[in-house]
């Protein structure tokens, strides 16, 4: 199990999701687990509950997971995916109210420094204030 908070990036666009994850790896490094997903089940723009669920699952560890989303449906579908997890896990997954690219980089930076899930979320959300 990872000692760091995991990061999940959920965009409507597969390219934005991958590009954001690339930026996180480049700027923060590899020690934090990052998963990304984008696109609907047909491969068009959109988000997919099952794919989000799997992405969260793939980086889940003792410290929990911070999810970064882009627009409307990405958040609603992420909420749905989280509610499908068992209750103990749900308590350790948060959706950050932050811009997706900046939020993901900030969240991963905080996570790489050993920050708790609350600290990771707070750091990501600082961008709004």
């Amino acid at each position: 199990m990872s000692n760091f908070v995991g990061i999940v990036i959920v965009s409507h666009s597969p390219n934005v999701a991958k590009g954001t994850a690339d930026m996180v790896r480049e700027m923060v490094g590899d020690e934090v687990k990052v998963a990304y997903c984008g696109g609907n089940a047909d491969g068009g723009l959109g988000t997919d509950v099952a794919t989000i669920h799997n992405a969260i699952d793939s980086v889940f560890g003792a410290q929990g997971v911070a999810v970064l989303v882009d627009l409307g449906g990405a958040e609603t579908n992420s909420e749905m995916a989280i509610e499908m997890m068992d209750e103990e896990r749900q308590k350790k997954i948060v959706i950050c109210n932050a811009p997706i690219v900046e939020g993901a980089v900030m969240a991963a930076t905080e996570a790489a420094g050993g920050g708790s899930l609350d600290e990771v979320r707070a750091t990501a959300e600082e961008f709004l204030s």
Partner: protein
Amino acid sequence: MEPETIKALIGRTHAVILAHAEELTDLDQAIGDGDHGINMKRGFDAIAAAADTIAELPCGKALEKAGMTLVMSVGGASGPLYGSLLMAMGKAMPAEPASPGDFANAFQAGVEAVMKRGKSQGGEKTMLEVLLPVAASLKDADALDIGALRETADEGLASTKDMKATKGRASFLGERSIGHLDPGARSSALLIHAVCDVIEGK
């Protein structure tokens, strides 16, 4: 509920969404991201593909299964919103729904789930402008009045035209969202008419 009735409901709602997919997309292009028609079509295609399985289930379970199918197939916000509506309705439906009151209570539970999921109370130019008055009219009625139900849905839809969106992507447009019907309210009205069609045996 008879499997044939469930199949008829699935068939009619699917047909209505297919027939209006382009219109929903046009409405959504005006004030949203232009994917409402194609997303709803994808969702109702998936329900139609599972119609035989869903129709064998008791009414509540059939609603839950249909809702989950939408959640897993739509790809936009309308999946979890309509999915939550049907799943909460299914959970609230008694095993043997007997009276219009049973349906009214289940629908009310569904609409509350949409409010929770969408973090909206209504009045924000959304599907709730149709769903909330329909829920109220179902609750207040002594007997099912299909004509009144259709009228309530249409009035709710029409009310979205002059509203300013403060929820969802349309809210980015602010004042410019005024003058357009809300696509989610339109699809809600369409679905309510489709259910009314089945009840009336059309």
